[in-house]
């Protein structure tokens, strides 16, 4: 996710595939259950989650709290794994769509056709399952399955240079009806005015109602299209939402989010290196803590004594550190820290590492591409500039589940940094072939000729009266006038 270009995402995801599970306290062997679960999910979603094993699984202590009603205190029941090399593709979208009750036959999901969805700059699918109260009195608990699809279409580059978009242009389809099984089916279009003076954009067809909410510290206005209301399809059989900009935008600057982060690898050569993480707090006057979770594979040996955290030129000591060192070929490094970020500051966290030499069967088929280090996770309760009011779950279930806020003053954010690509010292895999060729050549040529020289026997030979070559040579000599052989 490009924060500078896209602003704050509603639900961010790391590069690759991520799986985290809180197990129930009745499970006795959590590791065995984790392995079975990742294999079953890999089969159901056609994703290679079966590569999750102990070398990329960690047990975070503070970063992930169970969603929904469960109160989990024993963090040994939590497992977290990321596969940064996995790419999301059409065969992951199909089982994701199968989980929807109406499938892609009715409702909003008719828009989800793979050929347009993957023609985009960013694509992310998520499935969350959590226990929630069945109704307001909370006498019974039921399971909620939430499926999220986040796609960024770049209409500027694909839409002839104009920033106008419509549902038909993006998905090559329009909405015709709602899913009969849905209790709510709505389309929200963000029409927040940038500067409060003029109207810069126009949405057609005109929305039936407008919803205002404070989302992630910003006051935003949404145009609402309710597919279940009978008046929507009165005028036309299909709904094609269009947005037109009334005057060309001079500067398309999105506001920088209050918390964002970057990560990169520095250093030279193939032996050592340094991982640096930069965390920005752009809030003008409030400081808040952030939990940083880093998972580094075992073949990058971290030197924790070189861990430095510098804010505004001074050292910043974290109030909570949990470090689990790696075991070769068994466990990755786990580093969790609670860092206080002062207002309007940049915090730089650096740690040095050394690259390990792997056994020759452990290299992937393309080892010169590099090895991935998964994204680090930042979890924080960001104070919002504008006070948020409590919204009823019944009225707007979407916003309360996507942007939950327990008190009105801060909202929860989970960010992911970029994944890193590091080169490990790679052996030359063609060497066995070279060795065989060289040895065989040396043996054949040198040994053979030495042996011949040593064991040659000489015997006298009768001078032969002349073969064909000698006769030809004599003929040429006669022409030249030279005495014959």
């Amino acid at each position, binding site marked *: 996710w490009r924060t500078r270009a896209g602003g704050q995402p509603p639900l961010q995801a790391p590069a690759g595939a991520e799986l985290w599970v809180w197990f129930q306290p009745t499970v006795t062997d959590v590791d065995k259950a984790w392995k079975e679960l990742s294999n*079953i999910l890999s*089969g*159901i979603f056609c994703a290679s989650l079966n590569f999750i094993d102990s070398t990329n699984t960690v047990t975070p202590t503070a970063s992930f709290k169970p969603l929904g009603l469960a109160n989990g205190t024993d963090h040994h029941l939590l497992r977290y794994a990321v596969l940064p090399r996995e790419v999301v593709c059409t065969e992951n979208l199909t089982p994701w769509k*199968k989980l929807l*009750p*109406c*499938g892609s*036959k*009715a409702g909003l999901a008719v828009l989800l056709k793979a050929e347009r969805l993957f023609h985009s700059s960013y694509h992310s699918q998520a499935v969350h399952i959590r226990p929630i109260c069945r109704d307001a009195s909370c006498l019974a608990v039921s399971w909620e399955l939430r499926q999220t699809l986040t796609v960024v279409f770049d209409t500027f580059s694909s839409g002839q240079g104009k920033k106008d978009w419509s549902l038909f242009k993006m998905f090559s389809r329009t909405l015709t009806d709602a899913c*009969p*099984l849905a209790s709510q089916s709505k389309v929200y279009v963000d029409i927040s005015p940038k500067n409060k003076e003029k109207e810069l954009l126009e949405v057609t067809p005109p929305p039936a109602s407008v919803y205002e909410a404070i989302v992630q510290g910003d006051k935003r206005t949404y145009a609402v299209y309710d597919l279940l209301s009978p008046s929507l399809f009165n005028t036309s059989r299909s709904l094609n939402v269009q947005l037109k900009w009334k005057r060309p935008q001079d500067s398309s600057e999105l506001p920088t989010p209050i918390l964002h982060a970057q990560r990169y690898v520095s250093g030279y050569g193939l032996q050592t290196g340094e991982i640096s993480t930069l965390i920005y707090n752009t809030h003008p006057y409030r400081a808040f803590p952030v939990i940083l979770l880093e998972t580094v594979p075992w073949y990058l040996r971290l030197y924790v004594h070189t861990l430095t955290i510098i804010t505004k030129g001074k050292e910043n000591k974290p109030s909570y550190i949990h470090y689990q060192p790696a075991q070769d070929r068994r466990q990755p490094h786990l580093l969790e820290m609670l860092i206080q970020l002062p207002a309007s500051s940049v915090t730089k966290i650096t740690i040095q590492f050394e690259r390990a030499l792997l056994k020759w069967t452990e290299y992937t088929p393309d080892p010169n591409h590099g090895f991935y280090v998964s994204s680090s996770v930042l979890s924080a309760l960001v104070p919002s500039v504008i006070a948020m009011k409590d919204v009823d779950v019944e009225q707007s279930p979407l916003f309360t589940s996507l942007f939950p806020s327990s008190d009105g003053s801060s909202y929860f954010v989970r960010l992911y940094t970029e994944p890193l690509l590091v080169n490990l010292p790679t052996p030359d895999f063609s060497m066995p072939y070279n060795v*065989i*060729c060289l*040895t*065989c050549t040396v*043996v*054949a040529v040198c*040994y*053979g000729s030495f*042996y*011949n020289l040593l*064991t040659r026997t000489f015997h006298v030979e009768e001078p032969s009266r002349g073969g064909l070559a000698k006769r030809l040579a004599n003929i040429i000599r006669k022409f030249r006038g030279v005495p014959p052989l």
Partner: protein
Amino acid sequence: RTSITSRYETVYRSTTAQEEAALDVATAREADAALHLLQDASLGALTVYVVPETSSHLPQGINVYVGKHRSALVRAGGGLATLRTRLQQLTQVMSFTASSIAAALSDRLPDGQLGPDARRHLKSSLGYEITFSLLNPDPKSHAVDWDIEDAVNRYVQPVLDKLSLVANFSVDSQILYYAVLGVTPRFDKESSSFLLSAHSLPHVINPVEARLGSSAASLYPVLNFLLYVPERSHSPLYIQDKDGAPVSTNAFHSPRWGGIMVYNVETPASPQASLPLHVDVDMVRVMEVFLAQLRLLFGLSREELPPEFLLESPGNEGLANWELDRLLWAHTVENIATVSTTLTSLAQLLDKIGNIVIKDDVASEVYRAVTSAQSAMAKLAVGHLHSAFQASKEAVTSSERAFFDPSLLHLLYFPDDQKFAIYIPLFLPMAVPILLSLAKIVREARQRKKEPTKMD
């Protein structure tokens, strides 16, 4: 070569006083219930009571009464020869026969030997997963509700409890929307209904199977029972059998897969009724059909009975004890055959690849499989069905664990021709001059031997 022989051991005795008292009741059913309490018949054994010809237990015209536990009442009459034929027929019905054993081994016999109906029954497995699915292709017109949990607890669970000796069962259910059958039904003007003909039924299952999604997450074979509520535009829908008459239960089953039942919703009288129509599924009717299909899938179907036989219905439990015994006989034989096939192919693999390393635990699993199979065969020969079945299950588990061990992968070991490919370019150039000079030495030695006198 392997072969299976079977025999029946018959023991004759007179009735005890308690059994006389139990037989003194009015109807055969009560007699059977009373006798069941007195017996200590173990699995696989049957007790047959020969009652006098004038006894009032059996109704007129019925000469054999088969109870739902392991006993039967046979009317004596017409001499010993008729009694013997009746007993033979009874054994054919209640206990295993040569054809049922051959059917159990059907996967291992070559094709031509058995008829086309041979491979119909479910393979013996340690567990089965049963999935009930409600298919609603038209949720706009029908809002279908079924109380599946109650129906499973009330009707299906007693049968599964009875079958729990055979395997572990797990039941789940799901509702699928917008799932259409693969075949468009024909409209029949005379009955003004839609018909699915018998020869289009095999094509029905395929498109639906992709959405059932059951095989991804289960270790055991899955039995699917689908209840299909046809769309409003295709109602009512009937299934035709081979003769063209509509099937009374409106259902069909596919061996080793499961069953499908079509549930027609009556169109309301007034055409202006508000959509969607609310439908409450009559679970009794549906579960009757599904349980009958379950019996057919397991091979518990009743073949043609001779006319003078009367079978007691097993009631809520779904199957009689002697039917359970028949299933256990077939499964035990099948398990032992599976073990022998698996271990034979393992031995062949070891012959083909000379340098496979067998780990200790694989070896111990193989030993355990062999001893369990031998004990199962010994117990089968004696007739202890229960312990034979347990031993055969252990044997199957051990042999599968040994055979599918990841360390036995063929590609992990260097094939011999790769070793040749590496060493020949090294040794061949070295060996050629040596061999040539050896040949020269041999030639010279022979020449010297031939002409020893040519020396000055």
